[in-house]
């Protein structure tokens, strides 16, 4: 298994450099060199452009430029943004990154779990009204024009039903409690000063990002704790009844701990506000990739159900539900996990559109804004970061697959 992971990580690093080189080619293919780009745009400070020329070594031969480009990106030295001069590109991107990861992770995990569950049940009950309804909905969601769907969701939940806020990231005013803001950022995150200066959202005062980071960290810790407990229990405890009891206990413990933490925490309202803003974007993104997982799981389940070991299990007198969950679905999970990779393109593309439509200040929105303000360094940096995210997601899917399939896990 470790050998497998090491090999994949190696391949990913190589691919990442090829991707960076491709970015350079894209940059280079543009008509004229960078010094001649957008000369008519008065918003671009000449010194910003000069900085990029210096960094790339524009007067040197192409291969040296490429080398400089690769070297700069390897050290996260992506230059200064043109539209937000003199902020560093990496600084802008890294402050937007957690928000994108939050959107992306939540939607992917939810879609995977829910879609897998639905697909499994639908495949088991073939030729029923439920199957037809679910299939119809899934095909609709899978082929629906995503931006249009997102707009309709926004209209329906935020304007028509008026359940959720429209767009943006946070509405509560942090300035009303400056003491809180200072203490939290002093204690937890020292970067809040630069955050404030950048003005990454118009309505949020300093500290919103810190509260978000706290929320994000606690969510990650909670998720890791939840799966960690399950993993340890599964390995250490062999008795099924005790196992089930410990699973339930662990879940209650983690969930209870999370809720208790935020109830007693004085930043709770702000965290809840941020969470409340994220509901429609997450829901929209989830629904679309959920449909993909459902369709895939169904096909995969139908194929698995024809396998010989399903007949063995039936002959063994295994109850139907156990056959479905333990025997069929567990194997159907393998191709679905591989296909997570294919669904990834949808989620990333969808993520950019989601951020744009719901004004969610993440990488995708930064990317589009940078592109329209002709900010070349920021555009390139954002694209590189999206590439890294995609690579990491692929790696995770590969490792997950290896973990799920003993044929890879055991023999490496």
């Amino acid at each position, binding site marked *: 298994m470790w050998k497998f992971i090491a090999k994949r990580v190696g391949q990913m690093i190589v691919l990442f450099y090829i991707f960076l080189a491709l970015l350079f080619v894209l940059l280079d293919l543009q008509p004229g060199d960078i010094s001649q780009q957008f000369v008519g745009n008065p918003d671009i400070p000449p010194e910003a452009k000069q900085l990029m020329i210096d960094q790339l070594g524009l007067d040197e031969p192409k291969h040296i430029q490429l080398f400089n480009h690769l070297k700069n990106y390897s050290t996260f030295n992506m230059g200064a943004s043109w539209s937000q001069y003199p902020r560093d590109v990496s600084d802008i991107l890294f402050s937007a990154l957690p928000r994108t990861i939050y959107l992306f992770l939540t939607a992917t995990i939810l879609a995977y779990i829910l879609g897998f569950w639905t697909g499994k049940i639908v495949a088991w009950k073939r030729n029923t009204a439920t199957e037809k309804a679910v299939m119809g909905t899934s*095909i609709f969601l899978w082929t629906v*024009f995503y931006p249009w769907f997102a*707009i309709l969701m926004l209209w329906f939940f935020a304007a028509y039903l008026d359940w959720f806020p429209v767009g943006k990231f946070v509405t509560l005013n942090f300035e009303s409690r400056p003491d809180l803001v200072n203490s939290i950022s002093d204690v937890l995150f020292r970067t809040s000063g630069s955050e404030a200066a950048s003005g990454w959202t118009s309505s949020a005062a300093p500290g919103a990002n810190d509260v978000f980071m706290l929320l994000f960290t606690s969510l990650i810790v909670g998720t890791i704790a939840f799966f960690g407990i399950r993993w340890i229990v599964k390995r250490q405890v062999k008795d099924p009844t005790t196992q089930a009891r410990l699973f339930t206990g662990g879940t209650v413990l983690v969930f209870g701990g999370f809720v208790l933490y935020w109830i007693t925490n004085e930043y709770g309202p702000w965290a809840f506000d941020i969470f409340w803003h994220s509901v429609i974007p997450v829901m929209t993104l989830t629904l679309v990739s959920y449909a993909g997982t459902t369709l895939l799981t169904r096909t995969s389940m139908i194929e698995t159900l024809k396998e010989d070991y399903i007949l063995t299990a039936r002959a063994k007198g295994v109850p139907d539900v156990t056959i479905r969950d333990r025997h069929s679905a567990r194997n159907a999970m393998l191709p679905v996990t591989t296909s997570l990779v294919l669904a990834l393109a949808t989620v*990333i593309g969808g993520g950019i559109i989601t951020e*744009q439509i719901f*004004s969610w200040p993440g990488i995708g929105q930064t990317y589009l804004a940078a592109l*329209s303000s002709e900010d070349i360094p920021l555009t390139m940096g954002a694209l590189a970061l999206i590439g890294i995210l*995609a690579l990491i997601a692929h790696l995770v899917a590969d490792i997950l697959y290896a973990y799920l399939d003993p044929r890879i896990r055991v023999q490496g």
Partner: protein
Amino acid sequence: MADLLTKPEGDAPEGEAIIATPLWRIRLRLFRRSFARNWKIFAQNKMGLAGLAIIVLFGLMAIAHPIFMATIWDGHEEGGKNVYDPRAGADAVIVEKTVVPDGEITDPTTQIGQTEAALQGTGLVIPEVGTVMTAPLANPAPPVISGVPHPHWLGTDPFGGDILSQLLFGARAAFALGFTAAISSVLIATAVGTVAAYYGGVIDTLLMRLVDLMILIPALPLLIVISGFWDLDLIKLGIVIGVTSGLGGTAIILKSQALSVKVRPFIDAARVAGGSDFRIVLQHITPNVLPLSFLYMMFGVTAAIFIEASLSFLGLLAIDQSWGIMINIAHTQGYTLQGLQVWWLMIPAGASVTLFSAGFFMVARAMDEVVNPRLRAR
């Protein structure tokens, strides 16, 4: 049969007479037979038939547009353009109302420029609740069937353009783009797949690493930056989409199919008979990969339409008119939150993109069952 009759005398052996039938005719007959057989399987799938019906419907829409333009949609005003022109048409009755508070009359032809302007500011497009970020430039008119000089059956957009005309024109654009993208994607994927499978070795490794890379890079962000840096029209965009998606997963699937063809005896026979590599790939391997290629072409149309509409929606394409642009206009002009009150702005265009993709997707899934018997229901 005609060849048989024109044969001189009866001394030619029977076998030779049969060979005299032109090869293309035998091929045609075989093709007809296999088409009839596959159609029977396909026709059993209701979803596939529904998809086909949808595609035919959009095909009719695309054909209808120029016919309508030439006949019933004659909206020429004095010295002006036809109000039904899907690109620049603006109904004066509607444009009358497009006076913004400071008295400036907006020119409907600058739509795309305004889109970019809206994007450029803060990057935020959504107005706050209760306030309107960009005051609507004009009031889109609801559907009017009669009683006005120029009836608009599906209403107009905020600039006075006729929605139905734009919608029908969009179908043409969608077909043009979808087929360009799908055909170029399949050409590339088939070429890469068969060549990699036939030659193997270094060529195979290089091509497959390239494919890996294209799978890893999410297509939409890449195309966003490409269309941001270059002005792409529909056909160029179609080719770019085709190349990027053709180098992806489809190439791998076609390669594995080509590999299974490569080991069949007739390839060896062709090689022994002295066929050049190019000839073998083109004449013997490719035809056996084609059904699968065609299947992925159908999936390709769905993907291409989605990407084009997304890019248009984001205001990144320099194309005249498409469904994506229709949604973009409604959205950037601040009608998002009015929802069903201005349904003719959002629903027809969005539903068209969705249905069009769904049609090809459903046909592709049904064809999948023809090509891949394992998926067929008992």
